């Protein structure tokens, strides 16, 4: 057992490894100097012919620093250590005269570890002998020195000694003592008669004899030592010897070898030593089997059977389990017991089993996304109609399926025949002149046009039409070919401005068509466009060109286009607004009131979902390839405050399209409009400024043309005036008109369209000056902001140049009208509307040319700003308002205060007006109503929090401060119900905003006016009274009075509502 183990080890490296030889290392030349032996310090070790000589005296170094230092005499008197006492002659030791090298391994007196004297083998032998001598002498046997060599006392190892002390005797096994039964059992486990034994079984007497113990049967309590058995060795057979062969262990023969306690030779079944060991090598003199020395080896001693004498026990020795070998298989146990294993008494807990979940009845092992609703009940054919089928329907097909009237394909269809002929003639004339001039006009357009030859138009029309000529051609072709193109083909706006292939009209035409097709999102748009007489190469090249050009000449970016409106758009714009606000709306409300839901209340628009949205919804894009997102043609509400807070979005659905003509079939495109197309861009800008021109009625104003122009001029002047007024926030304007005119060119918009309140509030800084005004205003209470606007205008006009002023006066009504649409209220206040109608009727006689002329006087570049700004008016005013009020925080605070305190707070607010906080979105105003709900709606909510939020609406933000307290979000509706419902939402907002601001202003007024202003506030109307007195001359008194009456009525009703 102890001899095992070396095999298990890994390789052991002995010695030092040969240094790795590198070829490329240059061989160092060995010089004679290198061959001399040197010590560690580099000193030469050997000198002269002698080797091993001391270097001590060499070169007379003795006594020097380098040389040998002889030890000097040291008196032992002073240091009498024990060492010195023990070795008095210590100074004479030779080591004292040696240096380290001499004491080294190769030195003259190498020092190494050696066995201490008393423990060397010689010494031990001597000891043993002396021991033996003592023994022999005591036993009176005197063999003399001869015997001394022979008699050697046995050396016992420490382990044996320990074991012996523990009670172990030689020949016994190790381990706990065993009971008698065990022994018996072992004895009885001899080969049974039925069992064949090959070879010779050991004689039974031998065993009992070898045990040498007679055990009485009754002594069951006596225990016996276990047999000395070698434990099983589990070693693989790695030799070619026979099974079970083991070579003789020489240690057995050697007397003083280590006694292997655990591996007794298997050949001996008994503890006594006999057998082969004695035969081969002889037996020591002190062994107890001396008498057997000459015994003939008995083959019976050999265990030549393969079967172990005791089946189980032999394998395990004393480590075997208790009841080894007598296992009984329990009845319940099914299966074979493994040899060497036994059944445990405690059964293992059965593993917890988790049964598979029972599947529900209708379970199908595949996953589908949870639908909120089911389609299964819908019949198959219906489902197909809903877009499940693979057959693709385009918008036209679907439209027809849905029973729509196919929309007309072109605006030109609407033109009366006579006009069409004229257009054709013009086109023809153009093409002819072109062909004459360039000499290389393509045939295509000519062919079309030559069919309808008529008399030529004057060349004045040419300028106009030449710009649109390609588009016209395209239309003509479309009509002729009856292509499958989408009927609501938008005239591609950019194509009118960017004409990359102007030199080649045919190509340009194709390009236009290509663009429209691209816009509609057709597949392979070029294929439909390519002309047949081109080679493949040409086609390919042109396709590339087109695609590049289409990328380069993009239409105005969405943002820009949302800010500006092109000339072609004015009328469409107007129409759209009318859709929402005009007669249709009243129809809707009527229908809704009559509960005639359905067609009357339903609107339907084409809507382009974003490509990605379709993807996310797992729906095929209904308009593959379309750039348009959202509802094409319908612009979003310009007057929503929020639209202007996110100006950066390019995806929003207002890619401008002049196609709304197709959106509103049956719309009249008047002849005048057509002929005036050339003037459209300018007209737009005009219209954008004054908005009057949106109103078709105004195209025929009643006044002379000078009048209109002058009005326009005066307008712009007043605008400048107003701007300067606001910018300076001073009262100087009256004196320094000229200076201000020069400086204030930028804020035209603000001047004209800004809330009068803002400048009013500024003006209030110098209260004394305006006090009179205010007093007069407070006296009148009218909710009509329109009049108020006019008042301001008029006030500004009054401050303008005297010349302008006079002219203005003459054109007073026209101005009024021209200003009105910006702040339209005609449908709101009936009286107002009537007056306007009268005005319009009067104005309708005016020739349209005047307009165009007047427009030409404007600088076309700057004007689009006006338009854009006019749209954004409400925003800016709100934002400014916010700023002025020190941002949103203060507002919230203010609104949360009880109403009584509002005045004071508002004063604070306006005091803060100098500090321009961050312009917060006007949404913040929305919070106020909610907060107020919590307070004022005491019946409903606890003071800590409101139980629920009222329906939030944008109109809330604009409602009066007092109105804000109400949880109703649409107060105006109630208020307006008595009035006509057709008023624009934007007007409402403007109005309410103005109201609010007006109120703020009013609170700031002197205490004199305070009571009055409160009165006016309660009537929610006094707001516009500010400059009412100024406007008296511009508005006819009777009208004003009527209006005021109407307003006071409405305000009363409002009051009632509030107190309900």
């Amino acid at each position, binding site marked *: 057992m102890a001899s095992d183990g070396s095999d298990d080890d890994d390789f052991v490296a002995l010695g030092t490894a040969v240094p790795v030889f590198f070829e490329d290392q240059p061989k160092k030349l060995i010089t004679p100097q290198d061959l001399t032996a040197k010590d560690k310090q580099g000193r030469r070790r050997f000198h002269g012919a002698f080797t091993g000589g001391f270097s001590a005296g060499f070169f007379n170094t003795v006594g020097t620093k380098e040389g040998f230092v002889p030890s000097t005499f040291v008196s032992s008197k002073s240091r009498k250590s024990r060492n010195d006492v023990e070795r008095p002659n210590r100074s004479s030791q030779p080591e004292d005269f040696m240096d380290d090298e001499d004491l080294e391994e190769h030195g003259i007196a190498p020092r190494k570890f050696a066995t201490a004297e008393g423990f060397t083998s010689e010494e031990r032998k001597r000891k043993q002998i002396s021991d033996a001598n003592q023994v022999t002498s005591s036993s009176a046997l005197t063999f003399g020195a001869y015997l001394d060599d022979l008699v050697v006392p046995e050396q016992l190892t420490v382990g044996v000694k320990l074991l012996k002390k523990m009670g172990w005797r030689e020949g016994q096994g190790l381990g706990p003592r065993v009971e008698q039964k065990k022994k018996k059992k072992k004895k009885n486990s001899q080969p049974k008669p039925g069992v064949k034994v090959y070879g010779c079984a050991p004689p039974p007497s031998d065993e009992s004899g070898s045990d040498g113990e007679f055990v009485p049967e009754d002594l069951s309590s006596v225990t016996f030592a276990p047999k000395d058995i070698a434990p099983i060795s589990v070693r693989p057979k790695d030799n070619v010897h026979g099974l079970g062969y083991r070579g003789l262990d020489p240690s057995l023969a050697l007397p003083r070898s280590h006694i292997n306690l655990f591996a007794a030779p298997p050949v001996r079944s008994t503890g006594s030593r006999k057998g082969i060991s004695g035969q081969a090598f002889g037996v020591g003199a002190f062994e107890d089997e001396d008498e057997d020395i000459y015994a003939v080896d008995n083959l019976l001693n050999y265990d030549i059977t393969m079967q172990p004498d005791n089946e189980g026990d032999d394998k395990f020795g004393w480590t075997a389990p208790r009841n080894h070998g007598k296992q009984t298989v329990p009845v319940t146990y099914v299966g074979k017991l493994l040899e060497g294993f036994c059944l445990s008494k405690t059964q293992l807990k059965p593993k917890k089993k988790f049964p598979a979940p029972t599947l529900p009845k209708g379970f199908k092992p595949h996953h589908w*996304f*949870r639908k*909120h*609703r089911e*389609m299964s*009940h819908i019949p198959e054919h219906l489902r197909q109609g*809903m*877009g499940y089928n693979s057959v693709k329907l385009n*918008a036209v097909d*679907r439209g027809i399926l849905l029973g729509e009237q196919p929309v007309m394909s072109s605006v030109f269809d609407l033109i009366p025949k006579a006009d069409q002929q004229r257009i054709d003639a013009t086109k023809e004339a153009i093409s002819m002149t072109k062909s004459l001039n360039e000499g290389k006009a393509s045939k295509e357009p000519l062919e079309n046009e030559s069919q309808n030859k008529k008399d030529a138009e004057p060349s004045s029309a040419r300028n106009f039409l030449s710009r649109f000529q390609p588009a016209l051609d395209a239309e003509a072709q479309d009509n002729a070919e009856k292509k499958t193109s989408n009927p609501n083909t938008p005239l591609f706006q950019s194509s009118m401005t960017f004409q990359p292939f102007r030199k080649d009209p045919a190509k340009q035409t194709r390009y236009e068509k290509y663009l429209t097709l691209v816009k509609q999102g057709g597949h392979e748009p070029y294929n439909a466009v390519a002309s047949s007489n081109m080679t493949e190469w040409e086609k390919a090249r042109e396709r590339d060109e087109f695609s590049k050009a289409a990328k380069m000449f993009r239409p105005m970016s969405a943002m820009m286009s949302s800010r500006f409106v092109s000339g072609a758009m004015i009328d469409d714009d107007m129409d759209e607004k009318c859709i929402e606000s005009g007669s249709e709306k009243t129809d809707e*409300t009527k229908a*809704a009131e009559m*509960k*005639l*839901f*359905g*067609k009357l*209340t*339903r*609107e*339907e628009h*084409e*809507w*382009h979902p*974003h490509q*990605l*949205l379709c993807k*996310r*919804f*797992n*729906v095929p*894009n*209904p308009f593959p390839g379309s750039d348009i*997102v*959202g509802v094409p043609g319908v612009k*979003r509400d310009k007057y*929503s*405050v929020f639209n202007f807070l996110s100006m950066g*979005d390019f*995806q*929003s*659905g207002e890619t401008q399209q002049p196609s709304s003509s197709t959106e509103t079939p049956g719309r009249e495109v008047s002849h005048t409009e057509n002929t005036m197309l050339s003037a459209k861009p300018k007209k737009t800008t005009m219209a954008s400024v004054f908005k009057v021109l949106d109103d078709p009625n105004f195209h025929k104003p009643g006044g002379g043309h000078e009048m209109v122009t002058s009005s326009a001029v005066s307008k712009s002047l007043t605008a400048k005036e107003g701007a300067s007024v606001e910018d300076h926030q001073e009262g100087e304007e009256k004196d320094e008109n000229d200076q201000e005119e020069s400086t204030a060119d930028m804020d035209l918009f603000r001047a004209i369209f800004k809330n009068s309140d803002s400048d009013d509030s500024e003006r209030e800084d110098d209260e004394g000056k305006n006090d009179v005004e205010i007093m007069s205003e407070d006296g009148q209470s009218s909710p009509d902001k329109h009049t108020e606007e006019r008042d301001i205008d008029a006030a500004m006009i009054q401050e303008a140049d005297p010349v302008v002023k006079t002219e203005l006066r003459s054109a007073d009504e026209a101005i009024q009208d021209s200003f009105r649409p910006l702040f339209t209220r005609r449908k709101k206040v009936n009286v107002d509307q009537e007056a306007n109608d009268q005005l319009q009727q009067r104005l309708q006689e005016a020739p349209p040319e005047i307009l165009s002329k007047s427009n030409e006087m404007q600088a076309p570049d700057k004007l689009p700003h006006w338009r854009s700004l006019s749209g954004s008016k409400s925003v800016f005013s709100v934002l400014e308002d916010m700023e002025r009020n020190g941002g949103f925080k203060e507002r919230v605070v203010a609104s949360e205060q009880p109403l009584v305190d509002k005045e004071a707070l508002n004063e604070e607010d306006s005091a803060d007006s100098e500090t321009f906080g961050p312009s917060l979105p006007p*949404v913040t105003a*929305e*919070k106020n109503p909610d907060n107020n709900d919590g307070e004022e709606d005491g019946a*409903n909510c606890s003071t800590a*929090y*409101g*139980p*629920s*939020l*009222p*329906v*939030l*609406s*944008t*109109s809330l933000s604009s409602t009066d401060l007092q109105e804000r307290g109400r949880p*109703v979000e*649409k107060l105006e509706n109630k208020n307006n119900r008595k009035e006509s419902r057709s008023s624009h*939402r934007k007007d409402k907002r403007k109005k309410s905003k103005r109201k609010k601001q007006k109120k703020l202003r009013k609170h700031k007024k002197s205490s004199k006016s305070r009571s009055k202003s409160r009165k006016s506030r309660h009537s929610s109307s006094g707001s516009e009274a500010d400059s009412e007195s100024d406007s008296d001359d511009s508005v006819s008194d009777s009208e004003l009075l009527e209006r005021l009456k109407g307003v006071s009525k409405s305000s009363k009703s409002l009051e009632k509502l509030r107190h309900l």
Partner: protein
Amino acid sequence: MSLPNQKTQTLECKQGAVRAIRFNVDGNYCLSCGSDKTIKLWNPLRGLHLKTYTGHGYEVLDAQSSGDNSHICSGGMDKTVVLFDVSSGQAIRKYRDHAGTVNCVSFNEESTVILSGSIDCTVKVWDVRSRKNQPIQELNEAKDSVTVVQVSDHEILTGSADSRVRRYDLRIGRMFSDFVSKPVSSVRFTRDGQCVLVSSLGVSLKLLDKDSGELLNEYSGHQNSNYKIDCCLNHKDTHILSGSEDGHIYIWDLLEAKVSSKLDHEVRKTVHSLSFHPSEPVLISACADKVYVWESNQPDQT
């Protein structure tokens, strides 16, 4: 048909006023949106509060859990739409493009996009899968605050305070707008997807045919003049439920349009939010600072 008729649980939400209460997709959990800027996840049937989600800067007005229950989207008065991770409670994303209070949010059926309707008159569509902060698309047809948004597999249904119910059909690429004389406070598809239930301020609930926009039925008797009060259908489309400002929930028979029962909250406050279990007769409703769970004491006859 068994209807919820008894109050089985009352959840003390402790989050100020409960602005909305919403079941999750399978009806095992619900979300309550509080005015204290938190969203709470509950097991309503056992009345267990499971988790609180914070991340909003102001009152939370609406929330919805995704189809796989892994996310929650919510919108509130801080103008943001927030996407929460359910298990970790972290706000994964915040979308801040709205210019005003976000009134309503909704996932699409696969929970890949969030639609949020806001007081700024727009519905914005946010892509959950990308990291973009800009909406995919903006539905800006509304002229007034968008109060409610619902999504079916290919349709987006919005109601707004401009008294219009708009339905955007992605498959055919059309937008249908129905005018209902009063500001819309809630809009629901019926579960079969054929009709649209509209509740608007001050008037009766209307059941409109989805395709034609025609009025199919009207349900009146409740009180809704001020607040945004939810309406819903029961799990089998047989009844119509709506909150009311008199502290009741009104339940009408869909066909007969008669009030079949009323659930009294014993509080004279507005019951403004309610949500019906998708498959069982269980209703949860929110009133002031509490959430009530209503169940049926009759077995559901199927």
